[in-house]
Structures are given as structure tokens and as C-alpha cells.
């Protein structure tokens, strides 16, 4: 047999995969499970959503950690155990994007943007809040620094996600395999719009454009919640409609 006749398994575009889709279902169901945990960690435990005010002064920041240090510790423990769920969600969306006719470029961009964004956009606020909560006797200026660093990195990390959203939207619009519906691309563009508006929080310590503002936070969060639910539902649809025995081209 000559070398050129040998075909390694799973290299071709329409390589025959397994008939079972159990692995896809396992990975898909981690998506809603993770975002459920995410909600519990960030809303009642870490108290990052709704955000504590940027305009409270050192006394207010110290009072915030005094009041919530126990739930913050619990929330950070859970987050440290479970935040890998973000990688499952990102990796699986990228996997479905690789099935599109638009090619793998934007799937890789989506995965890269989201994978980098996990640290500044999710983990760092937990670490900062925990650092403040573990020593309540720190000097106020240090507490204030941790408070600002945490909140600004969580709400103000814009580029990683905008890049991923842009890649997601363009890939859907160019795709002819109908992996995701076109309206999801238009909804995703609104995510980019809210990220651009959120740039204001780096300059505004109070008001509608601050990190807790009605536009930069509440409008953005409402859009995000709608988008995330739609993405999850459409991801389920993409999983269900993927023919058994197929896999994305390399």
C-alpha cells in the first residue's frame, strides 16, 4: 500500500462520524446549566449584578464588603469550580460555527475572543472581590482599588466580546448551511452596539452611562439576557438538526 492511499480517520469534509449524538447532547446541556450557575453566583452571591455603585466613596465600598464578604466567598468558590462551563459554551458554539459554509475563520475568532474574555470579563472581578473580602482591615485606598478593578474589568471588558459577536454575526449572515437563523445575526449586532455604548463607563463615575447606569448596564444586560437565551435555544436547534454521523470539516 502506498502512503498516499492511506486516509487518516476523520480528516475529510464529509467524513463519516458516529451515528450517536450523545457527545453533542452532553456538551449542549452544559450550556444552560452553566449559565444557571453563573446567574446564582453573580446576582445573589457576588452581588455584582445589579452592580454596586461607582460613586459611593471608600466608606461605601468598605461597607459593601463588610455586608457581603460571606456570600462573596461562597460565590467565588462556586465560580472557581464551575467557570469552565464558559469554555464549554464557547467551544461548542465555535464547533457549530465550523459546520457553516462560511468557513472556519470566524469560528476560530469567536473561540479566541471568548476564551480570552473569560479572565477579564468573568474571573477577575471574583478574585478582586475575594481579595477585598478576605482582609476587611485593608487600607481604604486598597479596597477602593480592588472594587474599581473588579467592576471595571467585569462590565468594561468590551473588545473580546465585541470581536466574538462580530465574528458570530458575519459567519451567520454568510452561511448557507442554515446552522443558525439570520435573525440571530441581527440580534447579535445589538450586542456589539451595547458594548460600544458601554465604553462610556470608563469615563462616567455616575449617571446613565456609569457602570451601573440605565443605559450602559441595564439596557445592555436586558439585550444580553435576550440574546443569550436566543443563542441557547438556537444552539439546541442546531444540535438537533445536525445529521447523525457527520462532523465539521477540518
Amino acid at each position, binding site marked *: 500500500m502506498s502512503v498516499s492511499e492511506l486516509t487518516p480517520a476523520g480528516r475529510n469534509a464529509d467524513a463519516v462520524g458516529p451515528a450517536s449524538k450523545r*457527545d453533542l447532547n452532553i456538551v449542549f446541556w452544559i450550556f444552560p446549566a452553566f449559565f444557571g450557575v453563573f446567574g446564582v453566583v453573580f446576582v445573589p452571591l457576588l452581588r455584582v449584578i445589579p452592580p454596586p455603585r461607582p460613586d459611593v466613596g471608600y466608606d461605601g465600598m468598605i461597607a459593601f464588603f463588610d455586608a457581603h464578604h460571606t456570600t462573596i466567598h461562597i460565590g467565588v468558590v462556586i465560580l472557581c469550580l464551575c467557570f469552565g462551563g464558559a469554555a464549554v459554551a464557547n*467551544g461548542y458554539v465555535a464547533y457549530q460555527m465550523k459546520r457553516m459554509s462560511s468557513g472556519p475563520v470566524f469560528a476560530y475568532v469567536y*473561540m479566541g475572543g471568548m476564551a480570552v474574555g473569560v479572565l477579564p470579563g468573568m474571573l477577575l472581578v471574583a478574585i478582586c472581590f475575594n481579595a477585598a473580602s478576605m482582609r476587611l482591615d485593608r487600607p481604604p485606598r486598597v479596597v477602593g482599588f480592588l472594587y474599581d478593578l473588579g467592576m471595571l474589568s467585569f462590565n468594561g471588558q468590551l473588545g473580546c466580546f465585541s470581536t466574538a459577536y462580530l465574528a458570530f454575526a458575519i459567519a451567520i449572515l454568510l452561511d448557507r448551511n442554515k446552522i443558525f437563523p439570520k435573525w440571530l445575526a441581527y440580534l447579535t449586532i445589538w450586542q456589539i452596539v451595547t458594548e460600544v455604548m458601554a465604553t462610556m463607563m470608563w469615563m462616567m463615575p455616575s449617571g446613565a452611562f456609569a457602570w451601573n447606569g440605565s443605559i450602559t448596564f441595564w439596557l445592555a444586560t436586558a439585550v444580553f439576557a435576550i440574546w443569550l437565551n436566543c443563542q441557547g435555544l438556537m444552539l439546541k436547534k442546531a444540535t438537533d438538526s445536525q445529521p447523525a454521523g457527520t462532523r465539521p470539516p*477540518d
Partner: protein
Amino acid sequence: MQMIAGFDDIPRISNVRTQQMALWITGVSLVILLIAYAAFPGFWPPMSPQLSADEVATFYRDHTAWIRFSMITFNLCGIMLLPLFGVLVVQMKRMTTQNQAFAYVFLSATVSSSTIFALADVFFATAAFRPNRDPDIVLVLNDLGWLVFVAPVGMALVQLAMLALAVYHDTSSKGHAPIFPRWVGHFSVAVAIAMAPSALSIAFDSGPFAWNGVISFWLRNIAFGSFVVVMLIALRRAIHRQAVDEGLYE
């Protein structure tokens, strides 16, 4: 065994060769990292979370040179373990009895977990950059370094879980033997169980679960180190079998 002669330019041969080189880079980096690990005074014994600001500042002042040496080495070579994980992705994608979703999620989690290690290194190294810094600032940098280094195991857990799931779903079919023996799956689960309790270091400042504790520090790091060593061996065998399967050895 020698690779067959005269086919140097065949992509399949370079694919095997690059994987072998990747394992060598990882192996050499691991040795260098172990030297840096042995050289970091903060690991012998691991620094207690109960140290005061003055004690921590004095520690960084007294050991500046060794801390800098070890952190610069970690900085340069820590991420050079990535080639091992790159080879893992390649081998997971070769598994024929699944749809490759585990491999993409594994890749996404690998990127995120690497950024976290890099951040911990920056905190430690910055604390050592100005030995005469205000002790309260040195303390908070040291806290952030330890918190980021030890607690966020969630990404590693997803990597290990995806590897284990991929191995368990990789049953032999159509004449293809599984890429890894099943014990690789059991081993991944065991490493995950050993690493998971480190998340509790968020909530303890003494005992086995504190960041300097027997479980959170020693068990976690030994488990991860063993994972790298064992996977070097398992991957070396897998690559060898790939070369044999593809007729690249004579």
C-alpha cells in the same frame, strides 16, 4: 524504527513529526518549570495566607532575586506546556466514534486556563519588582497572585472532563482501535478529583484547604504535574500508533 525514506514532504509525515516535537518542547519546559518551582522561595513552604503585610513585604525584600528568577522563568516557560495540549486536541480530533465537540471545548478551555496562569505570574513578579513598595500593596499583590494561582481550577476540570469523556466515547469501530487506552480516562477523572478541592482555598486561611494547604497546594500541583508526565507518555504511544497506522514506519 525509522520513518520511511523519500516521503519527507508528505503532510502526514510532518503532522507526526510536529506532534513529536511538541512533546519534546513540553518535556523540556516541564524540567525548566520544575527548577523554577524549586527555586521560588514562596513555595518552600508555601506562604501562609495568615502572614501580615509587614511579613509578606519583608519576605519579598529578603528573597527578591530568587523570586524574580523563578517568576521570570515561569513567565517564559509556563505556557510552553501548551504544545502538549495542542497534541491532545489533534489526537482527540482523530477519534472516529464521536463528533469532535469534546475536542473543540477542550481547546477553548485550554486557552482560558493558560491566560489564568499567566496572570498569577504577573502578580507575583510585580510584587517583587519594587522591594520597597508599601507593604499593604505588596500584600494585595501577593494575595491576588496566590488566589489566581491556586483557586480557579474550573478550566482544568473542564479539560480533564472533556478528555475523559472523549476517551470513554472512543470505542473501537470499523477497524480503528481507540486512540488512548481506557485508563487515560480514569486517570483524567482522578486528576480532576484531586484538583477540584483547591477551589475551597477561597474560603480558608489555614488547614489543608488553605492556599498553602496539603490538599489545595500540594495535592493539586502534584496531580497536575503527574498529568503532564503521564500524558507525555500516553501521547508518545498514541503518535507512534498513528504513524504505524498510516504506514509511515517501515
